[in-house]
């Protein structure tokens, strides 16, 4: 589900609507989503916010209903500025710089990867190192290696 083409740490948008539209366009060009994905993401964020304040880093998990997604993916994006976004569960405003956009087609089968992602959010070493990565390649490799380690741990 991770792909080096699906990492971009160099966004510089002023609000999440612009950012989501930009990411959705890229995903559409790569064939991962339908053109309506942007609207799907934005509608979802308005109705059911996806921000999360974790112990080490604030993140958002934008996603849409499954009908807008062609094939599953996780897209990692960083915006230069922190963007105001509402938190899941309590709709409190938080500032987020890191976005993990989820493309979900089969919730029951893909839930394992999400669980890994959530484990990552609770892993201090990973979260702190993630903040200091400055190239798309290093962020991608860091993520893939960590997920591999976690998967191996689960198989034991």
């Amino acid at each position, binding site marked *: 589900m991770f792909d080096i083409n699906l990492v971009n740490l160099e966004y510089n948008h002023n609000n999440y609507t612009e950012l989501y539209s930009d990411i959705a366009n890229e995903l559409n060009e790569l064939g991962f989503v339908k053109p309506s994905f942007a609207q799907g993401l934005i509608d979802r964020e308005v109705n*059911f916010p996806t921000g999360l304040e*974790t*112990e080490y880093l604030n993140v958002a*998990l934008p996603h849409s209903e*499954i009908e807008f997604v062609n094939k599953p993916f996780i897209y990692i994006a960083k915006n230069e500025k922190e963007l105001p976004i509402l938190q*899941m*569960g309590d709709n409190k405003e938080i500032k987020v710089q890191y976005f993990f956009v989820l493309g979900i087609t089969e919730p029951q089968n893909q839930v394992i990867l*999400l669980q890994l992602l*959530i484990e990552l959010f609770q892993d201090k070493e990973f979260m702190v190192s993630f903040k200091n990565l400055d190239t798309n390649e290093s962020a991608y490799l860091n993520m893939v290696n960590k997920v591999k380690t976690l998967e191996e741990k689960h198989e034991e």
Partner: protein
Amino acid sequence: MKNNRLIVACGSGVATSTTIAEKIKRMFENDNIDFPVEAVDYKSIMSELNNTSIYVYIAKPDDDVLQKAEELGIDVYAGVPFLTGMGADEIYTDILESIKKYKGE
């Protein structure tokens, strides 16, 4: 017992509610607790509440939803701590207390 079920509800029943439901299921398994857990879509929450005893919310519940939960005597808990890890243990302990109550232990 007709209402013995824990539901986890998020905006679409797609991503986060399924993840949290699986996490709670695993915690129950580890603690040898036999209690059904299901992920549901917030859009159908009003009807889902009718046969539920514990409601874990990911999407912020509207006032009418909370009111109905109260009328039905459903215990309501925040699910986001299971995603962030912050405060999850306390909520899990409270959920276990609710289960004891529903099972009449």
